[in-house]
C-alpha cells in the first residue's frame, strides 16, 4: 500500500440521480498517480462525482474501488487516505486558522506531534503564517479558501480531491498553488475540478471533459489539443462542450 505504484482508483458505471435529475450517468474511469483535471460547465456533475468518491452522497449504482476493494467496505481506512476540499464548505468563524487545522488534524487522526509540524509547514505554503492566529470569521473568501486547501493537504493524503480550489484566489496565489500541486502529484492521485481552463492547462496529466453527468472525452492535454487542431485547451473546451 505504501508503494505509489499500486495506488489505483477505479470507478465503474457510477450513477447518481437527484429525484428525476440525472447528476451522474454511468461514469467509468481508472485513475492512477497524477493530476486529473476535470472540466465541465456548472451542473455537469463534477461535485457530485467528488461527493460520491468521498462517500458524502449515496450512490444509486456502480462501484468505486480503491486498490480493488469498494470504498464503502473500506470505510474509515479509505477516508484516511483522502484529502478533500469541498467546493462549498464553511469554516468555524470562532476558530483561528491554526486551531481549525489542528481540529481537522485531530479528526484525521494524525499523531499530534506530526500534525503540529505539518500545520506550520502548510500555513507557510498557503501563505497564512502571519494571520494563523486570527479568527476565521474575519478572513476574506480567498483566505478561507486557502485554509480549506491546507486542511485537505493535512496528513499527506494519497488521494487529493480539490473541488474548484482556485475559486476566489488571486493570480499570484493561483500560480503558487499550481506549482505546489505539480510537486504533490508525484506520488499521489490529485483530482482538480474547475471551469477555468487555464488552471489546468499546465498542471494536469490527464483531462476529463464532463457534460450532463457523462464523461464525454479524456486524454492528455497536448493530445486533445492536437485532436481538435486547436492552439490551447480553450479550443478543446469549445469543441466538445461549447455547442449549447
Amino acid at each position, binding site marked *: 500500500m505504501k508503494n505509489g505504484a499500486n495506488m489505483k482508483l477505479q470507478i465503474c458505471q457510477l450513477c447518481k440521480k437527484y429525484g428525476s435529475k440525472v447528476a451522474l450517468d454511468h461514469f467509468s474511469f481508472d485513475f492512477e498517480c497524477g493530476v486529473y483535471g476535470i472540466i465541465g460547465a456548472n451542473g455537469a456533475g463534477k461535485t457530485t462525482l467528488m*461527493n460520491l468518491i*468521498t*462517500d*458524502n*452522497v*449515496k450512490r444509486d449504482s456502480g462501484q468505486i474501488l480503491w486498490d480493488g476493494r469498494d470504498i464503502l467496505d473500506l470505510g*474509515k*481506512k479509505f*477516508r*484516511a487516505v*483522502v484529502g*478533500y476540499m*469541498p467546493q*462549498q*464548505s*464553511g*469554516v*468555524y*468563524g*470562532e*476558530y*483561528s486558522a*491554526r*486551531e481549525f487545522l*489542528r*481540529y*481537522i488534524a*485531530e*479528526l*484525521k*487522526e494524525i499523531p*499530534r506531534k506530526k500534525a*503540529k509540524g505539518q500545520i506550520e509547514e502548510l500555513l507557510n505554503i498557503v501563505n497564512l503564517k502571519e*494571520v*494563523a*492566529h*486570527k*479568527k476565521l470569521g*474575519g478572513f476574506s473568501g480567498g483566505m478561507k479558501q486557502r485554509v*480549506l486547501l491546507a*486542511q485537505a493537504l493535512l496528513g499527506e493524503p494519497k488521494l487529493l*480531491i480539490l473541488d474548484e480550489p482556485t475559486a476566489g484566489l488571486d493570480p499570484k496565489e493561483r500560480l503558487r498553488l499550481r506549482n505546489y500541486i505539480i510537486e504533490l502529484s508525484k506520488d499521489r492521485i490529485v483530482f482538480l475540478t474547475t471551469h477555468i481552463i487555464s488552471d489546468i492547462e499546465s498542471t494536469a496529466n490527464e483531462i476529463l471533459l464532463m457534460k450532463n453527468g457523462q464523461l464525454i472525452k479524456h486524454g492528455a492535454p497536448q493530445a486533445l489539443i492536437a485532436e481538435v487542431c486547436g492552439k490551447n485547451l480553450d479550443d478543446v473546451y469549445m469543441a466538445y462542450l461549447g455547442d449549447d
Partner: protein
Amino acid sequence: MECKRILLGKPFVLLLVALLLVNTYFFVYQNRDEETDFFYYRDTYDAVLTQLSDLSFEEALAWCEEFEEETNQQWIEGTWDFSQESAIKRMIVQQVEEQYAHLVGYEEYLENIQKNAKKLQGVSLFADNSSFAYKNTVKTAEDFASLSGVSVTAGHDLAVTGVFADAWTEIISLIPIFLVCGLFLQERRKGLHVLVNATPMGRGKLAVKRIGILFLASAITVLVLFGSKIFLNGYLYRGLGEWGRTLQSIPMFYNVPYSMTVGKFWLWYLAVKIVGLFFAGLVLWLIQALISNISAAVGVLGVVAGVEFAFTAIPSSSFFAPLRYVNLFSYINYQPVFTRYLNLSVFGNPVSGNAIACILLPILCCILALLLVLVSKKKYPIGGKRRSFQKWERFKAKADRTFSGGGLFVKEAKKLLFYRRGILVLLILILLLTQFGIPYRDEMSSDLYQAYYQEKYAGPITEDTVKALQEELTTATESEQISALTQMLSEISRAKDGDWIVPSEPYEALFTVQQYHYTVALTALLFLSLLVSPIASQERQAETVTLLYSTSGGRRRLWLMKQALIFSATLVVWFLVYGSELLRLTDFYGNFTCLAAPLSSLARVSLYDWNISLGQTLVLLYALRLSVLWTAAQFCFALSSVCKKNSNAVILNCSILILPAALGAIGSSIGSCLSMLLPLTVIDLAPAIFPYLFLFVIFIAAAALSRCFCKIK
C-alpha cells in the same frame, strides 16, 4: 445622519419608553400599600405637616414627641387598635419628628463646627498647623461658615428623599448607554466598517460625532428617567412647589457644606448624573473598541467593574482613598458622595471627596474621548499591522499556538463551552442555584422531640430500644414529648423485622412530593438543553459537515466524542443541580444517617417496599435522575442534528422538551405526562418501572437518530 439613526431610531426610543414604564412601575411599587389607598400615606403626611405648619420648630417637635408618648402608652395599656391607619400615622409622625428635630438642632450644629475648630486650634496637639488634622479642621470650619445665617424651613422632605429610596433608576439608566455603544459597533458586525471608516480623517470625525451622540444619549436618558423620578416623587409628596427651600432643611443633607436650594441641587444632581453616565458609556465603548472579541470584551468589562467596585471599599484614611471617589460607581450612585462630608488627604491637603469626584469627572471624560478618537483613527477593520499592535499580535500568535492544541474531546468541549457560550449557561445556572431554597417537610409540633429521640436511639430496633422508649414515655412530662414518643412506639409496633429507628428529617424532606422538586427538575432540564442544543447543529450552521464526513474520524469517532461530551454535560448539570440540593438539604435538616437501614424503616414516607437499604435508595434515586437527564441530553442531541441553525435547535428543544415540562411544573397534568418532569423527580412515580423502560427506548432511539443524521446527508 448617524445621530438620527441612533437617537431617533426605533431601538433607542422604544427602549427609553420601556424603561420609563419600568421606572414608573418601580415608583408605584415602592409607594404602594396593600391595605390602604395609594395616596393615603401621602395625604396623612401632608395633613400632619399642615397641622404643624403654624407652630414653631420647637412646638412642632414637642407635639410629635407627645403623640409618640401617647401611642406608646396605648401599646402598654393594650388599647392600641392595630389598624393600618394608626400604624401609618405613627410612622409618619416619627418621620416628621425627625425632620423637626433636625430643623431645631441645625443652627447649633453649625455653631458647634466653628466652636470645635476654635477649640482645637487652641490645643497644642493640633497647633502644628502643617498637620492634616489641623488643616482639615480649619477647612471644615471654613466650608461650613458660608452656611451660617441660612434659614432652614419645614416642608415635604419625602418629595426629595423619595428619589433616593431605591437604586433601580441608577441601574436601568445604564441600559440605553449599552445599547448606544452596541449600535456604534453594529456596522462592524455587518461588514460596513470598511466603508464607513475608509479614511483616518473620516474615522476620526465619525468618532467625534459619536462622542457627541453618546453625550446626548446620556443627557436624554438621565432627563427622562431621573427627571421623571424627581417629578413623580415631587408630585406624590406635594413637594413640587418647594424647590426654593434651602437644601439643608432636609435631614439627609445636613452634612452638605454648599449653600443651595433644592431646585439648584436637582440641577446639579442631574448634571453630574449626565456626565457620569457619559463617562460610563465612554469606558464601555473604549473597551469594545479595543477588544473586538465580544466575550473577551465582556470579560474585561466584568474585571473593570469588579476592580472599580472593590475600590469603593478603600478606607478613607488610605493614600488611595481618592480612587473611591474617582470611580464608576460613585458616578452611578452619586448621592452618598454628595451627602457625605469627608475630606481626603491629597498630598497632605484636605480636599473634599465630592470635589475630587466632580473635578476629575470632566477631565477623565476628556481623556477617554481623546483616547477613543485616537483608537478609532488607528484601528484597522481587519488585522492591523501598525507597530503599536505588533507586540500584541505576537503575543496573540503565541497564545494561539499554545492553546489551540488538545484532543478531539477537549476541542469539542471548547467549542461548546466557549464558542457556543455554554460556560455562560453554566455560570447562570450556578448563580441561580445559589438562590434556591430547600425542600420542606410536613412539620409537626412534636418534631423537635421526635428528632431528638430518633437521634438518640438511631439504629436497629431491639427489645432494649423499645423498653428504653417506653421508659422515656413514663418519665415524659410535656404533651409534645409524649405525643412524639407515642407516635414512635406505634410506628415501631408496625415495623418489620430488621427495621431501624432512623433520624428521618432529611429523608422526609427529600421524599415529600412537592413543587420544589418540579422547579429543580425543570431547572436541570432547561439548562442541560440550553447547554447541549448546539452540539450537532453547530456543524450544520458552519456548513462544515461535508468536510468533517470526509475525514477518517469525522463520523463514528466524532459522534462518540459528542456522546462523551453530552454525557459530561449531563454529569456537570446533574452534579451542580442535585449536589447543591444535597448540600442545602443536609445543611438544614442534618446529614443522611443510618444508610445501612432497610428502606422499610421509613414506612411513614417510604417510596416503595423494595428490599434495599436507605443508602441504596439514595444512590438509586440520584442514579435514576442522572439517567433521565442523560436521556434528555440524548434527545436534545437527536433534535439538534436535524437543525440547520443553533437558534432553531434551541427553539426546537425548548418547545419539545421544556415547554411541556414548564406546563407540568405549574400544574398541567398533560404537560407533566408529556415531559420528563415526573421521571426526573422520581418521587412521584415511585414504584413504577414502565416510564423508565419507555425512557430507555427513547434513549436508544435518540442515540440511533443522532448517529443516522451524522451519517446521511
